[in-house]
């Protein structure tokens, strides 16, 4: 076996029952894997939406700091959030946040040992997608009704 360049390669080394070492096979990855399965698509989406939500967190900090700084700084942030770019950003963050929240609840259910079978996984996955669309629409409906 060649010399390892990365410590994580240690996890790729196994032993046969007779004790001789063997390099574990690498499972077929991105090139051959069906990328359009709901299970894997929702899984990576959970990470991506978590990262997108970070943009919303930065806006929250900006909003709070601007409110503490004074009227002119606050007027700036309110102007940006009401602009086309701001509304677009907030809509994206709202959808990402609802997805991450619902998919996170799905993850907590899995952690508790519930919902691992394939039919349930697909059912809860569809529920997360539909729930994200419905709750994002309801959030913006409430926002637009109270805004105007």
């Amino acid at each position, binding site marked *: 076996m060649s010399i390892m360049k990365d410590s994580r390669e240690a996890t790729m080394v*196994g032993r046969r029952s007779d004790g001789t070492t063997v390099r574990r096979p690498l499972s077929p990855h991105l090139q051959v894997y069906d990328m359009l399965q709901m299970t894997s698509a929702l899984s990576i989406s959970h990470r991506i939406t978590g990262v997108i939500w*970070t943009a919303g967190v930065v806006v929250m900090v900006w909003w709070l700091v601007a*409110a503490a700084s004074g009227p002119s700084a606050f007027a700036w942030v309110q102007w940006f959030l009401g602009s086309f770019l701001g509304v677009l950003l907030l809509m994206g963050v709202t959808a990402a946040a609802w997805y991450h929240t619902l998919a996170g609840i799905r993850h907590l259910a899995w952690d508790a040992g519930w919902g691992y079978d394939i039919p349930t996984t697909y059912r809860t996955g569809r529920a997360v997608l539909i729930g994200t669309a419905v709750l994002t629409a309801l959030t913006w409906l409430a926002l637009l009704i109270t805004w105007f």
Partner: protein
Amino acid sequence: MSHSTSSNPGGQPVQQASLRTPLGRVRGRGAAGHGAHHWWMQRVTSVALLPLTLWFVAVLATNAGMTHGEALAWIGHPFNAVLLIALIALTFQHTASGLQVILEDYVNNEALRRGSILLVQGVSWLLGIAAVLAVLRIAV
């Protein structure tokens, strides 16, 4: 992760097929010595963030276009200020640990991986402190 041949029906000497020492396996806390602490904290913060985030989003969605005075009154109310500081602290704890896992998974170069994780944690602390200070300046 340890792939020891634990089932040993033939009674032959057990092959130690893991790099971990038996003592390390008994302690069960891994190389960092924290066991499942990081994983568990991410679950704890996610459960706490669920009601806090719903409350924050519900207030903002039904009060869009707040004036500066209205925002100060709302942030400055003791009840809201306490919940806001809890929301900020838990949000940045959860965000930093989530981003850390992503960096650990995808950044192969060790120096870059460790450096980017430290950067994420540093920026998270600074933004979190700034947000908490803003709430305190308004509320106190």
